[in-house]
């Protein structure tokens, strides 16, 4: 439900990261986002058909506070010359890494 969703967003340690270049790698994302704290995992968004990166990913931190730092200091700055957009995400579920091909 909507309230559940809102509560999840207030507690989540996962960020949706968008507007990436198709060529941006997990390594680059790791380097940038780990400046805010230790990362639990990165899940690259993949094209449904070709299974190649398609411009978004999920970044999960161990701590909420670190994710908040990324919202403050990474959101709106550049990676691979593109402005990175971050947003809270209720948490990654298998299958969501596949974008619309």
């Amino acid at each position, binding site marked *: 439900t909507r309230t559940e969703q809102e509560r999840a967003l207030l507690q989540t340690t996962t960020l949706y990261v968008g507007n990436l270049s198709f060529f941006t790698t997990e390594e*680059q994302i*790791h380097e940038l986002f780990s*400046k805010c704290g230790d990362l639990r995992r990165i899940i690259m968004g993949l094209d449904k058909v070709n299974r190649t990166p398609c411009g978004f990913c999920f970044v999960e931190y161990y701590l909420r506070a670190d994710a908040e730092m990324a919202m403050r*200091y990474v959101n709106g700055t*550049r990676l691979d010359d593109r402005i990175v957009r971050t947003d809270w995400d209720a948490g990654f579920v298998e299958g969501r890494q596949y974008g619309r091909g």
Partner: protein
Amino acid sequence: MVESMAKHLKDYLKNCEWEKARYSVRFLSDLVNCHVVSAGSLIQLYDTMMEAALEPNTPQVRRDWFVYAILSALPWVGRELFEKKERDLDRLKETIDSYISRRVKDHLVSLRVWTGQTLHPQEEYLECLWFQICKLRNDYWQEKHIVRPYLAFDTLLSEALQHSLPPLNPPRHTESMVYPMPKVIFRMFDYTDCPELGPVLPGAHSIERYLIEEHLSQILDQNIPERKECAAALLAFPQKSKVPLEYMIIEVILGELFRLPTPQYLEIAYGSLMIELCKSQPSTIPQVLAQAVEILFDRIDTMNPSSFDRFANWFSYHLSNFQFKWSWYDWTPCLEMEQDHPKPRFVQEVLEKCLRLSYYQRVVDIVPKEKNFEKLLPPKPEPRYKYTEDNNNVDPVVVIAAQNLIASVKRKTTPEEAFLTLRDLPNPLQEEGEPDAPYNPLKIDVLVQTLLYLGAKSFTHAFQALAKYHQILKALGSYEEAQICILRSVYEIWHDHPQMMTVLVDKMLRTEIVECSAVANWLFSRDMMQDLTRMYIWEILDMTIRKMSKRVAKLERELAESKEKLKAAATSDGSSDSEAEYGRGRKRKHGVDMPSEKPTEEMIERMEDKVEHAQTDQKNLFLIIFQRFIMILSEYIVRCDTDGKDFKTHWYRWTLGRLQQVFLTHNEQVHRYSDTLETLLFTSDVDSHISETFKQFLALRS
């Protein structure tokens, strides 16, 4: 109201809220200007504080605070006291003067961004403010920065009833009190660096420099969570036409970024703020920043490694936001310098960090083509797998085994089955005369390299390989020497990709394939010596120490919480049967210990054991690290002495600086084991150049 302010001040002191207490003193002082507080009673307050500052057998950091609080209030009230209480003010000056001249300043060396006394001296904070106050006094206490709204109401206020401050009894020093650490004032610009036509930068000992820097730091503190607003607030500084504001802003931010032991906020907070400043004022800030980078680079020879790292991290990050545009051409002279010189090292580390934020070809493209920049370019971050069929330097038997392993892994057989392909590999340790060798370095190397080679595509692939073979790897690493073998194999295959090495070691520590002590011993082992002047080694060591510290802190926190709960439960009603019943019922339901449940004595004892165990591990880790430092540095000094060479080379400076860095960065944790370190390691036999760093470390809290 005066009374309540005075009470606040006392509470702040009791709770060790030193900054708030300092501002209270300043506020009370300013009240003298509006005739709310009598000048005489303020002098009394200062006298009491000076008494506390002169109290024998208390730490200098405590005594310093009292003096600093008075000095930082004087710009507000100096003129008024000069007019009304000149003799008292002179007496105060004499006392402070003799206090300042008798202070011990062992901490100073380790807190300086530059070890050499370059163009701009890196002054000790209290001493610097003292000089500024002396100059202010010589100027008859005239300053031009402080906003004094009460001046408009002077006639009205002059008839107001004056109050006396109640006497202050500063709380006595106890062991548990923590005081602010000493600081060094960061300076990199003087008036000659700023444009001739603009406003003049206040001199190093002018009180305006102090007041404006403090004001800018406050704006930064209040706004840093919102970097856009922070940039706007800084650029809208009230008296911006009177000073070269951009220079002062950049100096303050870089000063905070380089602050030792550690910056107050995340490094990226300052980095993203500077990006924002560049965007908000593109006509001036980028030029000032570029000038700052040139100045920092120019003076990098004597920059301490902590600041060096932060400089390289920030600069590469900054460049990644501005298309890596930089006048690399100007830095070509460092191509001719020796490898360990800080200048070529800096360019190399920046390019390596740029690579991490972009990709190999990009970095190749940003440096000048015509010059020999390849020398400083990072290698292509690719795996160097040893057991390929075309490698003639490896015994063909081993290559066949490795190829069988690859085939087996690719067939997705169980890890146990795949590992069987290596069962016939000889054990080099046995051949070297160790018949009972408890582990086989060759097997370890083939397995680790092969797994990482197959998982070379990305971090996720590598992590998956480690996860799948976790049990086998864990079993292989049951001896510390075997864990070091695992780490050596990581280096063998990935030495061209420091970031990969770092995340792999991180993962192996988390999944307990290797222990912190093994990582420390590996980093200081002979195999790694050639990389000791590179940044990534110290990133890995730092990450390892932090892991250990986090574990200790977590266990200690849990123990404290449980003790708290036990105490609360004991005081509530002596735990009735029904409550115990309820607790048990809940436990069964959830299958785990509920955090709200009352802990038993045995549980607490078990937790105490765990904490003690973790603390022992932590102490041992520091002992390993410091012992290794002492060993390699002493050996180096002795070797240079016998060869008749000066030991103060780049290598020596780097390594000694890294020792200092461990002390500073982890000072809170290291501090707990100072006594052990003193009796076991930093004894009188150790070369004084090395033991000096320990003395400087102790001075941070004495």
